[in-house]
């Protein structure tokens, strides 16, 4: 708690200080917008820690075109309304580059404002396809899309020859989007979908849903959504002796699911970006995180690091600080980052990004599944 409070205070005081000081110092401000508080704050922690590390290391090497990068942090609580407020504050603060937002439902409305105001945005975490489907010039991401993650999950389930599959989602952009992609993949393979149903995010009681799953006698349950709901579903399903294998997207793959579900999290399947922190070429970076007492293994730490690095290299490649020039440089170049070689297509999506299926364990560790 104290850390999130401190972060909030830092963020507020930084932004207040910046508003007061104007832009006298020749610094490049990098806005970082994501949830510092709220139910998915742990993903925000990953984002902020990755981005801060990148800024620190780039500054240590002399900054960008001789200027230092300065982080300006904003809390959107993963709430679309709050995200719009944050986006407007960024505009007022005169920030030209944003790393964020995290939740797709926040990124989508905020990106409208960034595009209108000429601010370059790179989201390290939002996987909803719609974000880059609108022909925006200044919107990029350092993560794959639901449309890539869904088929990976769908194909994995199909390979196990299940008899009946249930798909549950939380009716939000991210969860429902991924769930639909999984359903379509399974349908193409001719697998019977016994149930396709929404729950309400924030619900606590899933006994009726679980009874229904038992009745439908399913052997696989795919859940599109985040860990607070899936954690409870897993736990309540175990208590009701529901015997099915659960699978979810990267939104459920973090250690908080273990504190909620406990033993019931054992054997959960999760599609995640590959563990970038295990790559040999990233070991120096991993050590730098560990020296600061931070954990680089979260799915969004290194994607956020890469997003900052892309902004920095984009500015240098363009030789200009104008976000439109930087965007053009990002589209035409090829960049070496901790998440691999990044090349962008016209929409602002990475030309290649893979998701891997992991098996989650009750102690919070994970092993890849083939």
């Amino acid at each position: 708690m104290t850390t999130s409070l401190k972060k909030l205070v830092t963020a507020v005081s930084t932004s207040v200080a910046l508003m007061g000081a104007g832009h006298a110092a020749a610094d490049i401000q990098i806005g970082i917008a994501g949830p510092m508080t709220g139910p998915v704050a742990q993903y925000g922690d990953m984002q902020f820690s990755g981005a801060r590390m990148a800024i620190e290391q780039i500054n240590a090497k002399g900054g960008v075109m001789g200027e230092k990068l300065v982080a300006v942090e904003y809390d959107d609580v993963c709430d679309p309304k709050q995200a719009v407020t944050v986006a407007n504050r960024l505009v007022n603060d005169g920030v030209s580059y944003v790393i964020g937002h995290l939740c797709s439902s926040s990124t989508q409305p905020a990106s409208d404002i960034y595009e209108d105001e000429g601010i370059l945005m790179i989201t390290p975490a939002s996987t909803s396809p719609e974000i880059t489907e609108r022909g925006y010039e200044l919107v990029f991401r350092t993560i794959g899309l639901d449309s890539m993650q869904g088929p990976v999950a769908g194909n994995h389930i199909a390979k196990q020859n299940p008899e009946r599959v249930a798909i549950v989602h939380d009716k939000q952009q991210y969860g429902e989007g991924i769930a639909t992609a999984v359903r379509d993949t399974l349908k193409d393979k001719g697998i019977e979908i016994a149930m396709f149903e929404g729950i309400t995010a924030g619900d606590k009681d899933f006994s009726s849903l679980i009874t229904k799953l038992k009745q439908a006698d399913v052997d696989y349950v795919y859940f599109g959504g985040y860990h607070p709901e899936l954690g409870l579903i897993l736990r309540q399903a175990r208590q009701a002796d529901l015997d099915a294998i659960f699978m979810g997207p990267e939104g459920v793959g973090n250690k908080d699911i273990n504190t909620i579900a406990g033993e019931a999290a054992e054997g959960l399947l999760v599609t995640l970006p590959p563990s970038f922190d295990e790559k040999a070429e990233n070991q120096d970076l991993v050590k730098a995180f560990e020296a600061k007492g931070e954990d680089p293994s979260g799915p969004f730490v290194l994607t956020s690091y890469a997003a900052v690095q892309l902004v920095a290299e984009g500015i240098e490649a363009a030789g200009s600080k104008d976000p439109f020039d930087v965007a053009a440089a990002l589209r035409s170049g090829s960049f070496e980052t901790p998440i691999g070689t990044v090349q962008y297509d016209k929409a602002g999506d990475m030309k290649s990004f893979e998701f891997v299926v992991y098996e989650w364990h009750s102690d919070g560790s994970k092993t890849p599944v083939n």
Partner: protein
Amino acid sequence: MQDLLYFSQQLINGLTIGSAYALIAIGYTMVYGIIGMINFAHGEIYMIGAYTALIAITGLTALGLAWLPLILIVALLCAMIVSSSMGWAVERVAYRPVRGRHRLIPLISAIGMSIFLQNYVHLAQGSRNVGFPALIEGGFNFSADGAFEMSLSYMQITIFITTLICMTALSLFISRSRTGRACRAVSQDLGMASLLGIDTNRIISATFVIGAALAAVAGLLLGMYYGSVDPLFGFIAGLKAFTAAVLGGIGSIPGAMLGGLILGVSESMTSGYLSGEYKDVVSFGLLILILLFKPTGLLGKPEVEKI
């Protein structure tokens, strides 16, 4: 047989959740019955009860205590004491100074209190979901020849029995005890009761304390049943319990019980036979329907308007 088992299972699910709604609804209905205001901070009192119980359970387990009934009783007492003091303090700080003013003022004060308590817990406990240890595990299983197995867990039985005990105790208290009689008198006519020598301030405080204590019981039970708590835990539960209170007839204690059970069962039946997406639509639709035909709720007295 298969279908019957499925139906019974959904009924059990609904009754479990409904009896917990009823426990929370009591707090809304008693306060409304006596001073005609809606205590919007009640959901937060319930959430604080759940957090206190969790802290007590964690503390006792860390101390090496292993005897489950003792852990539960101590946790329950801690939760009830903290929530009751909170309920008492909320009334003292936020409602008493504005009592007797225009109706909107205590309403705004209540909403403010609710936001304050929610944010206080955000800061004090962090905003993440915290897992509740599963203390009562296992249960009975019933199965016919088919594959579907109906289960009645010990946790569900605990919720039923505890609710039953609380409700019986409350009814006896209201109908038999001196304070209970004073409560009824105050709810009939506050001014008159005061003229007859009843310390109305004390009675009003007592209602808040009783409502909060029952909310704390629900907090512990539902925390264990669901498996996690977070600072927004009270918001939805509070909304549902308030609906239950209105459905049954706000101001009426048996009404709150009935409303809670109806709401719980209608939610689980909708999820079970239609789709989980429609459960709120159906339960709130039901509320509108009942209010259209019985504007004072199922067991509410057709009385002078209060809000």
